[in-house]
């Protein structure tokens, strides 16, 4: 099963719609509730990151009998130092993002905590690709 969703940078009104849609799909498949929560929390964090930092993005979800694979790619400023970005508390979020309740430097570490596999690649000035895999 494949699922695709586009994300508009800066669109906080609709941020989370893809994660919400995926949650409904995963629930309809009667998957374990903890697996569903970990997966949609990861995707929601990634979705908010794209809205907060990038110009546009896309989510590709592939659901197989043994795993859920999510690729979130964006066009945006990219990440200059991934090791630094993975540290809890480090953030480059704008004041507007912080007013929305995010931007505390918890997103990427939380994605790592809630996924079985996390791969992050970025080209500064071009964009970022995040792969999340959770085993079923």
């Amino acid at each position: 099963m494949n699922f695709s969703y586009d994300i508009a940078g800066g669109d906080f009104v609709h941020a989370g719609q893809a994660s919400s849609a995926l949650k409904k799909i995963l629930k309809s498949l009667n998957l374990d509730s903890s697996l569903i929560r970990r997966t949609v929390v990861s995707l929601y964090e990634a979705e908010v990151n794209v809205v907060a930092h990038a110009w546009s993005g896309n989510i590709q979800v592939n659901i197989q009998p043994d795993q859920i694979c999510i690729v979130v790619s964006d066009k945006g400023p990219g990440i200059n130092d991934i090791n630094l970005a993975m540290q809890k508390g480090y953030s480059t979020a704008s004041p507007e993002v912080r007013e929305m309740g995010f931007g505390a430097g918890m997103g990427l570490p939380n994605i790592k905590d809630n996924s079985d596999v996390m791969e992050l690649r970025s080209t500064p000035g071009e964009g970022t690709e995040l792969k999340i895999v959770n085993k079923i």
Partner: protein
Amino acid sequence: MRTEGEIRCGEHRKNETVGRAFCSDLMSDVLTLGCQDVLLVTGLANVQAIRTAEMADISYILFVRNKNITDEMLQLARENNMVLIQCKSSMFKVAGELFTAGLQPVY
């Protein structure tokens, strides 16, 4: 000990019980909880507070400081069968009242 509040959504669930509560205006922290059966106490009144609760499997939200709950928030909460409560008290006062009444912290 009781906390005064108005149920804005989910009236049909008012007789349910919840064992633990978490106070935060920072949704990033809420997303790290990793547990269900939680009352979220927050002063952050926007759509993302509802979205965050949806992702974190949190069904009960108490908005403090008399924050305005918008129609968009109510609609999203109804779609997710959530209970939204609005109260005039500060977060500190509400936390004290709920703790005294026996509600446990998440950590």
